[in-house]
């Protein structure tokens, strides 16, 4: 009885703490986190391209990078909450004005990354190159419409 009360107390405390920390997420931190994830994706893309274009050998690492890209790619949808369009960000307000279209582009991007993963897993070099270009196009398409560039 005592033990379960203690457990309940602890659980409540944990929940309260978690709730507090969630409520404390500032738009500035949300933007910082978004940038961190985007940078991580860019780094994996860069590493992946160095291998796939034969500039470094580590063929065995390809799948790790594309896996990371695929996982991080599925997180993008929750990284643009309302209120994070101003401040230290290059995200354009258009994202929040046309949520449906933005979401479609992200879904298409997830799909192209999944295709890339499949091509890499199958060891199909030609398909990998083709799919990588498609992934790049999906990144570029979104940046072109929804990211402020060069001021």
């Amino acid at each position, binding site marked *: 009885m005592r033990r379960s009360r203690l457990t309940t107390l602890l659980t409540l405390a944990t929940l309260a703490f978690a709730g507090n920390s969630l409520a404390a997420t500032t738009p500035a931190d949300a933007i910082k986190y978004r*940038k961190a994830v985007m*940078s991580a*994706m*860019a*780094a*994996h*893309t*860069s*590493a*992946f*391209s160095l291998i796939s*274009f034969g*500039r470094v050998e580590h063929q065995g690492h390809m799948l790790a990078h594309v896996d990371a890209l695929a996982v991080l790619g599925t997180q993008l949808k929750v990284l643009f909450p309302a209120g994070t369009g101003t401040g*230290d960000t*290059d995200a354009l307000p258009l994202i929040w004005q046309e949520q449906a279209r933005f979401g479609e582009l992200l879904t298409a991007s997830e799909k192209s990354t999944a295709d890339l993963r499949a091509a890499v897993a199958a060891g199909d070099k030609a398909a990998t190159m083709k799919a*990588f*270009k498609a992934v*790049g*196009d999906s*990144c*570029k398409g*979104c*940046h*072109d*419409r*929804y*990211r402020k*560039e*060069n*001021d």
Partner: protein
Amino acid sequence: MSRRPWLRVESRLCAALLVWLSVSTGTAASAEQSADRMERGRYLIHAGGCISCHTADRPDAIPLAGGRRLETPFGVFYSPNLTPDPKTGLGGWTDADFNAALRHGRAPDGSPYYPVFPYPAYAGMSDRDVAAIAAWLRSLPPVDNPVPAHELPWYLGSRWVMLGWNLLFFDSRPFTADPARDTDWNRGAYLVRHLGHCGECHTPRNLLGARDDSRELAGNPDGPDNEKIPNIRQDRDGGIGRWSIEDLLLFLEMGMLPDGDFTGSSMSAVIDDNTSHLTADDRRAIAVYLQSLAPLDSPYSGAPARTAHFHHESRAGRHGSGQQSAVKVCRPQQEQEKWQECLQRTWFRWIAIGCSPACMWPSSTDPGCKHRSMHMASC
């Protein structure tokens, strides 16, 4: 005597045969030539970057039918319809008309175009390339697409004012290969300077909006659509000096920056419509040419070509920390920077960015002037 008619007939037959032969081989040759020329024209339309500007910025826009809105420091332009529609396009244009437009910046009625159309770059194009572009554009299905009139300040209302500008700044000499350089470099120079007209955005402009080729490709703070266009010379920090040739090739092919980011901005249209359609050899030629340009620091600190974390660094770095300063009078170094920035911009922007017109005349470049009157609230 009696054989003469035969001789005549014979010679006529021979002549006829000769004519027939020459005509038939001629048509075969020209048919082949024209198929070749069409393919070449289609390629050049990409290499010349025609599509990005002459296609409206709508998902359903018909390529090359015009109507793209282009904001520049000199006003808002709408690109014309390049399809051979007689009313709203280039219906009835001859080779001579295309030549006059592309290489001399003149419309068929003799009036000069505004240099928002990059004829100062196209002037270096070869006869063969002009003819191929003309042939291919004429082969398009005509599209009836009237485009809005340009929105320009009163003093630019007539195209004829550009005659004076052309006298001052327009160099219509065709491209000549540099024998001291290899084929790749020369091809790259032709593509970058003329056909691809990279300098129209990447080279800063002087006070009257002419390209300052002494700073070729060193970046342009006043690019189209209010974009700051990066320095693409070989500076290690401000330019693309850290990019390997493979980095450049990958960027031109698919838009990936060396840090794995993908470009958006107007360059993404250039990649989609132009450089991704080029042959690998042509992309390499462009890269070879770009890598041959000596470092030249951009006088303004905005928009370096990106390496890692471009966005954060460039924002913080631009104009130093002085931007937030409450001090109204600039410190010498900031004055110097601001002065350089003002010089790089067209005078239409001076008021907006806080340049002091009193010191903006070319004769006032003496050091005393900028210290005397560059008291700019914005620096």
